[in-house]
């Protein structure tokens, strides 16, 4: 159990800056995801926490202890990697017991903890199996169990689910989250998959090109993205980001989308306020696919569009609409019926819409 404090943490490889002055506080017992596309610096950050990589600048504190000079084996961290490093010539039992054996625990204690972990991971009937006979899914369960069993102060996981099939990934997500609630360990989880980060983490650090973009709870990051990178990265399908014109007419403000029409900012106080803050700037209007409504073409308000593509993706249907100059996606329930080529109108409740500065990409009026 330990809080992790990264201050001004920087890693350079020659002229390339992999991680740039990162400040991050990971509270004790929290599950924090480092999320971003490849090359964002998430794995380098984790490697510095682990001690595999030396920081170029900055500080790493576990509680109040500076660990920068400590080798990995003295940091009391546990690891699970994408490629489960387990001993294939050993049984599942011996793999689980390994970390405890090297710590010279009493045999009865080892046995108790191995069986407890096996029960948690639902590996009871595999304990005597040679690891070489296990499926990919089971291997990863052993790898996670083997690391968790030593109860390290900090548990680091680098894309542990990315080699697993979809159904098992969904199952392991639940189990990992449950494990963390039971063990109360500080967990740092590296992933490029926003679904994993959203579903597992207490807090998400969204990174891009070595820089922290936003740090917050899943709800904060999803509902109040600080910039267009975060807005676009979180959610699937991603947020609709539409360049538009801010129009002031007779004291009322609205957003112009060329031939497709206008959306009135008037009704909602917060959006009025943001639109005023943006006066004069080029803006990008943001709205999530699930927040848009599709209406018949002949009503008042909204933007005119034509259905260009309908994707049934299982529990939901994603409808693509061609506006005059832009395309938007709308998420509807499964078996939603609409035909390609149909003329529709799309409306957006202002309370759920976002506004970004087109030049900087920063959210406007977020406070």
């Amino acid at each position, binding site marked *: 159990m330990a809080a992790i404090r990264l201050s001004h943490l920087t890693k350079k490889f020659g002229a390339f800056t992999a991680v740039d002055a990162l400040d991050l506080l990971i509270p004790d017992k929290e599950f924090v995801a480092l999320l971003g596309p490849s090359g964002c610096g998430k794995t380098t950050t984790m490697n510095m926490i682990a001690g595999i990589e030396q920081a170029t600048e900055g500080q790493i504190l576990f509680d109040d202890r500076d660990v920068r000079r400590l080798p990995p084996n003295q940091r009391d961290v546990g690891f699970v990697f994408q490629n489960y490093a387990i001993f294939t010539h050993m049984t599942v039992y011996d793999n689980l017991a390994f970390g405890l054996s090297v710590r010279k625990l009493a045999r009865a204690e080892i046995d108790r903890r191995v069986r407890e972990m096996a029960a948690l991971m639902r590996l009871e009937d595999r304990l005597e199996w040679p690891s070489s006979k296990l499926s990919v899914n089971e291997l990863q369960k052993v790898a996670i169990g083997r690391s968790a069993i030593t109860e390290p102060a900090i548990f680091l996981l680098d894309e542990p689910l990315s080699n697993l*099939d979809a159904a098992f990934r969904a199952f392991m997500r*639940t189990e990992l*989250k449950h494990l963390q609630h039971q063990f109360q360990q500080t967990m740092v989880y590296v992933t490029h998959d926003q*679904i994993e980060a*959203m579903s597992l983490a207490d807090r998400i650090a969204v990174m891009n090109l070595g820089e922290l973009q936003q740090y917050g709870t899943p709800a904060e990051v999803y509902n109040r993205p600080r910039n267009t990178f975060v807005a676009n990265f979180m959610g699937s399908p991603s947020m609709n980001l539409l360049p538009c014109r801010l129009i002031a007419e007779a004291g009322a403000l609205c957003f112009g989308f060329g031939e497709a029409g206008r959306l009135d900012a008037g009704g909602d106080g917060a959006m009025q306020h943001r639109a005023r803050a943006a006066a004069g700037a080029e803006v990008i209007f943001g709205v999530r696919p699930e927040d848009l409504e599709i209406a018949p073409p002949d009503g008042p308000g909204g933007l005119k569009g034509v259905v260009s593509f309908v994707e049934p*993706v299982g529990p939901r249907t994603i409808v693509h609409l061609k506006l005059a100059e832009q395309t938007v996606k709308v998420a509807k329930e*499964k078996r939603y019926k609409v035909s390609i080529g149909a003329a529709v109108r799309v409306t957006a409740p202002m309370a759920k819409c976002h506004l970004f500065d087109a030049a900087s990409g920063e959210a406007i009026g977020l406070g």
Partner: protein
Amino acid sequence: MAKLEFIGVSKSYGRNVAVKDVDLVIADNEFFCIFGPPSCGKTTLLRLLLGLVQPDQGEIRINDQRVNALGPKERNLAMVFQNLALFPHMTAGQNLAFPLVERKIDKAEVARRVAAVAETLRIGKLLKKLPAHLSGGERQRVAIGRALVREPAAFLMDEPIAALDARLREEMRVELKRLQRELKHTLVYVTHDQEEAMSIADRMAILEGGMIRQVGTPDEIYNHPQSRYVAELIGSPPMNFIKGTFDPAARRFRADTFGFETTIGLSAPGVAGGVTSFAIRPEDIVIREAADQGSGVVAEVYEIEPLGAYAIVDVNIGETILKVMVPGQPSYQLRQPIRLDFPAGKCHLFDGATGALIAGAA
């Protein structure tokens, strides 16, 4: 333009059965996906179509003509491989011209066909660029263009975008679907990604161990799976299964591990009873207040996975864990008791031994 047919096709490699008794008709102009887990026979089906391997049994037909004896070149099918495989040292234009130059077609004709394809695919401005300077979407267009210049009867694609990141894959599949509609070509598309198959296919076939399990539209496959195998393979989060016994006379299903009983509407009489699995999709389960009276079962919230647009609420009834998909951002507490309802029209019942469908959703 091509109708593609497999009639009783089997293929083994030594003792390994790759494809077994496949009967399949892929209609002209259809976007057809072949979907299944690794080594289920997907790629072998493509190789059989292309003529790269010969079937041990059965017939392969293109436009009603038996083509078993024809070599790959005579079948006139175009293959787009995984990772798109463009020549990195050639410009987009040289890549496009390559299949024609290789066939020693005269220069003027090559130029004419490359220009025509470039216009269809709207890549005229990219012809002088090297693949390294193209975006993923542009590279895909060039790869398709290179297949298109040969004027093939149909396109075959083997996981053409599997190596790309999720966001780009989403864009590419929309683009691919649009292209297929415009080009009006039959397209056979192999993938192991169920969401990809669902989103782009007109129809799809699901394979298991070299055999076809089900063929249908994405809607049919998702909402009316004919076997437990298909039901499990399609859908994310996956379908929930509850083990129990079925009494066909009383039409009652009873769960094994907790108190849950329900009447199952049967479309056909005379089905076997015994060990069965009751199944329902996560988005079809309804969560109500624990105190509500009436149907359903009481469960506890086990974990919550918020995903923004919706949340997956994992609930447990004793040892059994079910996944429920709820729109928006619900605020349940861990271990909070709730009541689950399984609407009758959305439930499926599968035979415990064979996995065959006994009773399906409306």
